[in-house]
């Protein structure tokens, strides 16, 4: 059963006075519980596709459904609700709130969801323990290493049990050892919690970890292959 369906999705950007075709008609489906990498050179449309699936941007044409909800016909307020409850994000540059501690960063999403304080605290502690940051609850992002910050970002993305986590170049700012540990962590979350992970990457290690690899070039899918189990 698919959790993401993209059908003939097109997106163009205006750059100065030129239109740049970022996606030229993408049709792809992602099964629930998948661990998928979207790879390709810079400008191939990886991040654009991820943004469209996550409802951060709107497609010019085509249709995208996420967890049986048609993202392409949603209003901004509906997209905000979808992102809040169904989608977790992990960004290349971590994007933690610098004035909040690791624990508070993880709690913050649940605060927006209206989860009661005690439950928020319990779930945030539990997920931070799970990502290996038991001793780091009260450290602010500036007091954490890049790998630790990205673990907090992963914890924030999965703490509210989303259907899908979209990770845009999650290992790009990490050394290979830390990147590997992060991938192992996300793989574990994928297996244990059955959360679908979709990465955009040009990191070979991420491609190697992914069970399915979609290659984009010039806004079109040029290859789509699954790794043998």
């Amino acid at each position: 059963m698919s959790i993401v369906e993209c059908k003939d999705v097109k997106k163009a950007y205006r750059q100065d006075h030129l239109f740049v075709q970022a996606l030229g008609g993408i049709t792809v489906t992602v099964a629930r519980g998948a661990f998928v990498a979207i790879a390709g050179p810079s400008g191939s449309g990886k991040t654009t596709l991820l943004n469209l699936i996550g409802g951060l941007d709107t497609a010019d044409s085509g249709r995208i459904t996420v967890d049986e909800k048609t993202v392409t016909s949603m209003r901004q307020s509906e997209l905000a609700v979808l992102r809040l409850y169904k989608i977790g994000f992990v960004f290349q540059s971590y994007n933690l709130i610098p004035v909040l501690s690791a624990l508070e960063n993880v709690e913050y999403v649940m605060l927006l969801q209206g989860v009661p304080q005690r439950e928020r605290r319990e779930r945030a502690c539990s997920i931070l323990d799970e990502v290996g940051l038991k001793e780091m609850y009260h450290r602010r992002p500036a007091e954490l290493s890049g790998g630790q910050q990205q673990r907090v970002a992963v914890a924030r993305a999965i703490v509210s049990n989303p259907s899908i986590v979209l990770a845009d170049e999650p290992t790009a700012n990490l050394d290979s050892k830390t990147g590997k540990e992060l991938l192992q962590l996300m793989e574990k979350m994928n297996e244990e919690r059955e959360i679908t992970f979709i990465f955009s990457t040009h990191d070979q290690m991420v491609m190697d970890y992914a069970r399915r690899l979609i290659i984009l070039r010039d806004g079109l899918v040029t290859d789509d292959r699954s790794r043998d189990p």
Partner: protein
Amino acid sequence: MHLQLAWRNIWRNPRRTTIITIAVVVGVWSMLVVGALDRGMIDQMVRNAIATLTGDIQIHHDGYRSDPVIENSIADPKDVHNALARHLPEGSFWTARVRVNAIVSNARYSTGVTLVGIDPESEARVSFIKTAVVDGHYLASDDTTGILVGRALVDKFETKVGHKLVLMSQDTEREIASRAFRITGTFRAELEATERQFVFVNKAAAQEMLKAGNGISEVSLFLPDHETVDMVRDKLKASLPPAYEVETWRELLPIITAYLSIMDSWIFIWYLVVFIAMGFGIVNTMLMAVFERIREFGLLTALGMKPWWIIKGVLLEAFFLLIMGMAVGNAFGFASVFILNRTGIDLSALGAGAEYVGLPRVIYPTVYIQDVITANVVVFVLGLLITIYPAAKASRFTPVEALAHI
């Protein structure tokens, strides 16, 4: 956590937060202190005017106010005495005066003055004159030759207590009446003009000199509760024949009354001027704070935060800035008013300029609670209102643009 986040956000840049807080502090402080000084000044002007000779209410014969000659006096004050006995509230005081224009002279100088014939005992309870004597002594009830003169007039005439002065005025028979008096005392008044304008003699002496019989020019009343002036005026008016004019200090002092009536508007305009200067600072600071955190607002939107929540977050930051500034500004404002209440602001250096507009020599601030509330409401409400602009900007960043922002 929203409160914690807002509080921590404003301290990301302590220098900027300190500067904008100082701007709010200075704004609130100046609103309170300038407002209190204005109120204090006008209050003193009213108090001085009432205590000098005006009183809360005056009764005259019809026509006296437009032509203050002895012929327009109250020939037989019996009706007035009866009305006062019936309608004055307990604790009120009143006095009857003869008041005409006159010329005072000695061997070297002469000048126009207002001759005021007083009953020393009752006058002492209504006006400033008994307590204002600084040299010599106050008039005795049976002293028909004594005269009280202002310090400024004594200096001008180069005379002193014990010396003679001659008063000259028109009597009821339209003849020139004159009489010599001996200076029994000199007085100081809040305004030097008062010292030069008024001379005081015994009422009986004035009546005799002016051939006025029992006639008086005015009755001045001092009420225990100044708020009851209109009610007492109406009662007296109703019980006196139409030949009498009964007026409150508001009608007797039209310039001060006009000044009072524009005071509220003037203070509010002052608040707005201060706020506009302060408001630019607040908007500028909040815009800087917003543009520094574009990525963060993009992240919050990406996480599913609704635009209204972002607006609320920025408003919360402004709330903390305003509350801090208001708290410190109020504290400084009240401290300044407290100190100025002890020392006053001495306007003597302004001399004749201050006299000309009727300003007291020393101004003491007076705090009106409604001014304090208005100043704080103006700063708080308008402060939050103008923050809506940067807050709305923050809420309009799209996640894709914001997260791509370097």
